[in-house]
């Protein structure tokens, strides 16, 4: 098992750092899957996460100048690591003006992802900062746990409002209630509702548009009354975590609602795609 990668371009480094920062806000620990072409940050829907799951995919070519990966075996040319993304975020934080950043898999006192940052300095030789981030190697027999989740058979699919606006609305609602109802219809309308004994607050968004899905899932929605709302009651903190973690406006942001079951968020940037599943509360 071998992994070595290098970033030399400042813009790529900034972008990669922002992705890591977003992941760090969404998960305390997650799985990093390395293949020849891509990096994946995966969170499976364990009870410990409150049933939330995440799938984030990056094309390595968009970030790394050099990328060499040798997996556990020839026919399974992949590496799965358990890591705390916050550590990676911290390592990259002070590396923003680096000449190069190298990331490699090493075995120090335990398996580590070593981030070696070469910084400019006034003297002839560069300053080197190394961060050894302990990781866990996930054995092949467990790889099945980390398969890509399929798009659920949703009732309504709708584009999200501007994330910044949505975030500030949800932030204020968080002070009033722990659960929020997210409902939307095929007419491009979405409501965010909270209801407690003392107060109920609803924010209405209109004209959002519904994304066209080309596969069979559209059939089940074709017969649906466009005015009829599909809704799910979810934990407001999980929704806020997703919205607050976004550092850049995505190119496309949408969500698929399976009534009373789950909300599936898809956020697409140019080189990164992020899927986030929040289950409905009972």
């Amino acid at each position: 098992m071998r992994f070595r990668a290098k970033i030399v371009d400042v813009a790529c480094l900034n972008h990669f750092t922002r992705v890591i920062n977003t992941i760090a806000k969404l998960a305390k620990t997650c799985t990093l899957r390395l293949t020849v072409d891509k990096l994946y940050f995966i969170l499976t829907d364990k009870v410990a996460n409150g049933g939330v799951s995440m799938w984030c995919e990056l094309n390595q070519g968009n970030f790394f100048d050099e990328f060499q990966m040798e997996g556990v075996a020839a026919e399974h040319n992949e590496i799965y690591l358990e890591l705390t993304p916050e550590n990676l975020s911290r390592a990259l934080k002070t590396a923003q003006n680096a000449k190069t950043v190298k990331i490699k898999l090493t075995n120090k006192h335990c398996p580590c992802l070593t981030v070696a940052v070469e910084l400019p300095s006034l003297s002839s030789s560069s300053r080197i900062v190394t961060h050894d981030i302990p990781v866990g190697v996930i054995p092949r027999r467990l790889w099945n746990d980390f398969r890509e989740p399929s798009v659920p058979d949703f009732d309504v699919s709708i584009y999200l409002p501007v994330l910044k606006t949505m975030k500030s609305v949800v932030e204020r609602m968080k002070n009033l209630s722990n659960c929020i109802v997210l409902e939307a219809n095929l007419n491009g309308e979405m409501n965010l509702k909270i209801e407690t004994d003392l107060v109920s607050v609803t924010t209405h968004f209109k004209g959002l548009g519904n994304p066209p899905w080309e596969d069979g899932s559209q059939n089940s929605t074709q017969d649906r009354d466009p005015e009829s709302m599909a809704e799910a009651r979810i934990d407001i903190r999980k929704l806020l975590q997703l919205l607050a973690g976004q550092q850049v406006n995505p190119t496309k942001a949408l969500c698929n609602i399976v009534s009373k079951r789950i909300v599936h968020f898809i956020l697409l940037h140019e080189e990164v795609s992020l899927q986030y599943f929040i289950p409905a509360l009972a």
Partner: protein
Amino acid sequence: MRCLVTGGNVKVIGKAVHSLSRIGDELYVEPTEDGLSLRAVNSSRSAYACFLFAPLFFQLYEEGSLDPDGETFRCKVLMKSFLGVFRSLPSLEKMVEKCLISLNPRASRLVVQLHCKYGVTKTHNLSFQECELLQAVFDKELCANTLRAPARVLVDAVVHFPVTLAEVTLGVSPAGKVSFRNYLDEETEPSRTMVTELCLSEDEFQVVQVQQQSHVTFCLKEFRGLLSFAESSNLPLNIHFDSPGRPAIFTLSDPLLEVHLVLATLSDPNSSSQVHSATLQAHPANGAFPTATPDDDFTGDDIDSYMIAMETTCEEGPGLPSSPTFPQRRPHPGAALESESSAMESDLEGAVPGTPPQKKFRSLFFGSVLTPSQAGTHPGPSQDVLAEDSEGES
């Protein structure tokens, strides 16, 4: 005592107080003929800092008269109160034209008066307590290793470590490599904690004098406090250190100001459990070893390993051998306070018999001037010699 600070120097005093506030809760103020000294020490006696402002730093400097014993007046004020006067550095810079610090032993207040623009004068009356001399014993000439670098280099070095990191290990090799690494104490699991190491080449330093490879571990919080002062003053920072366990001394100086920061270092970076068992036994007369007072920076570590030698009283005569190591006994906090107050009382009464007149330093922490009735947990006047009487400020 009256000192008048004008212009840009007001901000310098403000920054010094900010730096000292990272160390201890009390600010010791002492006007001497060499200048005004502001000092602080932390509760576990593992960090000590002193800022000495020469008389020329001030537009007006009057040391004040000596007290009947021939000593200059010393006092301490609550750091929080003093810092409150200088809290906002930007507004100090913009608004304050002059700062007058005056101390009248017979009055009950230390007065800090800020003369600001537009005819505004802010007068702060701070209550103080008379106190003993606070003087750490150290001699940078005895340190094997010396580094000097512009503060900027060191600021850029520590930025890579998290703000919450407690301790950092500084390593040097004769080949000229200097490294900083975060220190993992015994309680953190190595397989879960990120380790960060920064290597600097000797080109980045103005002076690198290393006798042999060594590593010392000290508290980062207090060091950062000094760094932020150093950066704004544009002075190069000197680091003098030796083997693990001996204090690390950080200094800055220019004709008007001398700054010293002394930090205790971990006695053995590899296993803090082997603490000073040998030296503890060397002082069997110490009595019961009290439990360590919790200290935020070194929780869980054996506090005894961090003691810096403090000058002691001179009831011991020249016949007692001087110990090159630190005092291992850590006084019970209650006793320390007790000794301070009773030391004050006896000072005022002038009733300590047998104290040689020229050496009037008294330790705050080792209650040597206690009379038996006030001894409390101290079994009589124990006269541990802690270190030679060295030139503290040189």
